[in-house]
């Protein structure tokens, strides 16, 4: 049992860890993820007692506080009771001794034994990590990166430690070797207390069952690995997942605005957080349990922005919207997909207050909406398929963009105008500002419409087929723009579209709508990989040649044979569907 309480580490003036609490039992494998500089390695090293910096707090292993031990006592447990697999960098192994010598040393410093037993033990370890005696007799420079990593693992396992700490165990390994090493590591951590420090989220997901997100010396989120990955609750965790390439999500990569600074007051993440409030700038959020997940956030993690309950609307006998429930969180994109006539546009218009509701409730940031006040339109804006619909043909660009300011009685501001133009990547020279909408190209008009929507700094943007009237190259740019705006401002986007392929690339979640009802709703990747509703499958089929068994794509590939002769082959590729969780499980088990 390993208990870390209020661990603080500082090097001189600089505080690297600012109070970390972790509790681990035998069989736990906790991965600590975060950007470089978050303090991950410092955490690992302080547990090993390898830091000269000032540590305070408690690290209790088997009832004894490591921080209170003398160096000689610490040395006795280091490498014996707890061991570390070091990052496989150049010279992690001593270049002048053979691998076997170095493994022997790891044993001998703790357990002196005779030559024969030692030899036996070393051979056993070598085999355990997938090496052999021949490799053991080699010098580090004669081994490949993967073999060196194996040697480092063997050294860590030499005395059968109870705590195993891994520091970036798969850095600088190629994909195949990485998969093998991860398998070995998972095996090695069994029945021990495992701690994995890494920035590689997919590696972490494969070898840990719990995950903690470290930021600027503090844990921001901690929970079950699968759950954290499937449903990140802290804005930083979501940003981290969005910015790291993986085989799980389908949405394009997005970054996190700004960079990590250590001397931040209040919530360490607040300068980069798109949902921060006044309070976040001076008060530190404690790590606390929010429905089984540990989160350090004043707002309890990513806040739900829009909640729709039991929305109904009929036109005569036609039920256009029939009991719809929806949630949309801050900084999230929800794609509302369906054919024309499915009621999706009506739903969007109802949220906007452009169509009356028969029954149901709409909450914005937790408060139910009655009448649509002016204030509402500061927080929610809409863009349309045809941008010219929202731009009066009697107004030039500047007037069209600043019109909402007039409506809100906020007064025109040249500064705001230039800022939004810059955000939507349009020029602010007078010639352009004086143009009328019929002189704009489709892409420019849509950008103007977006700028017009943004000038009030809304939190939610409802986009109704925003790109279906555009050429695909322009469409790509507009979508990229929306994603960038989301990254920078934490904009929540409700994307109404019939295009499944498009929704797949830009949305976090997806809701499939037909006949006024939501048939299926879930994480985009999950929903598309494993559609449960027949109608979803039909939609997918019509989108890209899909049948019941999965996605069938006829592919023509050029296969190179024997060097220069190129042969054309055509074959079918069948992608087997699987759920998100199944994929994670599969990745872990492989």
């Amino acid at each position, binding site marked *: 049992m390993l208990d870390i309480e209020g661990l603080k580490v500082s090097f001189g003036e600089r505080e690297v860890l600012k109070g970390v609490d972790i509790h681990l039992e035998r069989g736990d494998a906790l991965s600590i993820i975060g950007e470089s500089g978050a303090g991950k390695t410092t955490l690992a090293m302080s547990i*090993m007692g*390898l830091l000269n910096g000032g540590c305070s707090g408690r690290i209790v292993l088997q009832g004894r506080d490591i921080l209170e031990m003398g160096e000689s006592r610490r*040395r*006795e*447990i*280091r*490498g*014996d009771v707890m*061991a*570390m697999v*070091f*990052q496989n*960098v*150049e*010279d*992690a*192994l*001593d*270049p*002048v001794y053979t691998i076997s010598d170095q493994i022997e*040393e*790891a044993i001998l*410093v*703790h357990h002196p034994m005779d030559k024969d037993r030692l030899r036996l033990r070393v051979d056993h370890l070598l085999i355990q990590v997938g090496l052999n005696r021949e490799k053991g007799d*080699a*010098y580090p*420079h*004669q081994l490949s990166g993967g073999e060196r990593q194996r040697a*480092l693992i063997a*050294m*860590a396992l*030499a005395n059968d430690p109870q705590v195993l700490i891994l520091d970036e165990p798969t850095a600088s390994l190629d994909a195949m070797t990485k998969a093998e090493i991860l398998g070995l590591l998972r095996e090695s951590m069994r029945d021990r207390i495992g701690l994995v420090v890494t920035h590689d989220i997919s590696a972490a997901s494969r070898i840990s069952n719990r995950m903690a997100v470290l930021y600027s010396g503090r844990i921001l989120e901690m929970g079950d690995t699968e759950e954290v990955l499937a449903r990140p609750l802290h804005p930083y965790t979501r940003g981290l997942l969005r910015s790291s390439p993986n085989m799980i999500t389908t949405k394009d990569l997005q970054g996190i605005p700004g960079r990590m600074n250590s001397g931040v007051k209040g919530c360490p993440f607040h300068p980069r957080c798109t949902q921060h409030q006044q309070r976040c700038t001076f008060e530190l959020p404690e790590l606390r349990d929010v429905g089984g997940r540990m989160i350090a956030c004043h707002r309890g993690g990513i806040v739900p922005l829009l909640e729709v309950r039991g929305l109904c609307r009929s036109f005569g006998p036609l039920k256009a919207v029939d009991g719809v429930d929806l949630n949309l969180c801050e900084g999230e994109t929800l794609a509302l997909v369906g054919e024309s006539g499915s009621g999706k546009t009506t739903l969007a218009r109802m949220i906007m207050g452009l169509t009356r509701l028969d029954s149901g409730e709409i909450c914005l940031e937790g408060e139910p909406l009655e009448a649509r006040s002016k204030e509402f339109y500061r927080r929610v804006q809409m863009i349309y398929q045809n941008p010219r619909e929202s731009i009066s043909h009697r107004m030039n660009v500047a007037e069209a963009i600043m019109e909402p300011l007039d409506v809100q009685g906020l007064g025109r501001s040249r500064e705001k105008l230039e800022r939004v133009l810059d955000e939507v990547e349009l020029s602010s020279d007078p010639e352009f500002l004086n143009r009328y909408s019929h002189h704009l190209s489709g892409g420019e008009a849509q950008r103007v419409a977006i700028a017009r929507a943004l000038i009030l700094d809304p939190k939610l943007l409802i986009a109704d087929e925003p790109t279906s009237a555009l050429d695909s190259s322009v469409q790509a740019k507009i979508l990229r723009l929306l994603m960038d705006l989301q990254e920078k401002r934490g904009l929540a986007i409700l994307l109404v579209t019939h295009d499944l392929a498009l929704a797949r690339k830009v949305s976090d979640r997806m809701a499939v709508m037909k006949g006024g009802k939501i048939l299926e709703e879930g994480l985009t990747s999950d929903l598309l990989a494993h559609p449960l509703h027949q109608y979803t499958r039909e939609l997918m089929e019509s989108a890209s040649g899909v049948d019941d068994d999965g996605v069938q794509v006829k592919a023509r590939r050029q296969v190179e044979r024997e060097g220069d002769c190129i042969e054309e082959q055509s074959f079918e590729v069948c992608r087997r569907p699987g759920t998100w969780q199944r994929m994670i499980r599969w990745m872990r088990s492989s």
Partner: protein
Amino acid sequence: MSMDDLSRGSGGWIDYTIARAIEWPGKAFSLLCKGGILANYIIAILIILSLNFLLPRMMPGDPLQAIYGDEALVAMTPQLEADLIHRFGLDLSIDQQFIAYLSALAHGDLGYSYYYGESVSQVILAFLPWTILLAGSAMMISTAIGLLLGMESGYRRGQPLDKLLLAGVIFLSGLPDFFIGILLLIVFGVSWRVLPLSGALTPYGDLHGTALALDLLRHLAAPLAALVIVRMTSTYLLTRNSMIATLGERYIVTARGKGCSERRIQYMHAGRNSLLPVVTSVGLHLPNIVTGALFVEIVFAYPGVGWLLYNSILSRDYPLIQGILLMVTLSVLTVNMAVDLAYRRLDPRVGNAH
């Protein structure tokens, strides 16, 4: 160059020439050591032999005069001159001369010292053991002391012991070895009279066994100390630096993580790895040690090759001077080669030692 320059003994250009002549192979060594070791050394040796052959012959005037000096000619009879011309093959063509020169060398014939009335090689052989004793033990002891102090100092970087050692060593390294030799001579030999002033053994002492050994050590102590004190400084500085660099390597953290004791880390990991550059430097510093030994021998009138060289210069015994320089360069080269081979054994990353 004039004879006056020469007769000044340890004056400017001799100092310079000897140092250059001896350091040259060291430089050539470092340039050449990438390829096949042996081939390189053979090439270096050939170049040295050719230079030694060509230089006297390229001097203006009579080669005989160049070889034997002005004074020798005064005492020379036509009979002797004819003898010498034949002996040096000066009546042959240049390539035949070269072959004759090589074959003479192959027989160990370095020429004839008219001053000692013996063949040059025999004269040198009589003096050589003392230089080997002095330079060899100086090299070993200074390396050992430099290494030990460097390891301690580098490991305790910034602590009082390190600061003290560093300051002391930097002070010492600025002093020339013959100066320290003179100091030692004055303090131990003249003022305190605990050590002999000159020689390698008490003349006509007729000592045996332990007494002989003690006498030998008493004579050796001061010149050896002078050499060691100066020569250990470069090893110390190098070891200290290399120790500091090594302590920053990742494998030191790995060793700590295993639970190795600090002593083990200091000697088995950091120390062992710091050894590598030191061994190379021993090879490169060998010429310095030999030069140093030559000067110190002069100061203490220690009967080694340096003292011999000094005397042969005073007596303008050109064949002897030439022979000594050739011998010294060749032996430095040989030791360098040995060091190079040793390095390959120490560092598995170099060559195919494994």
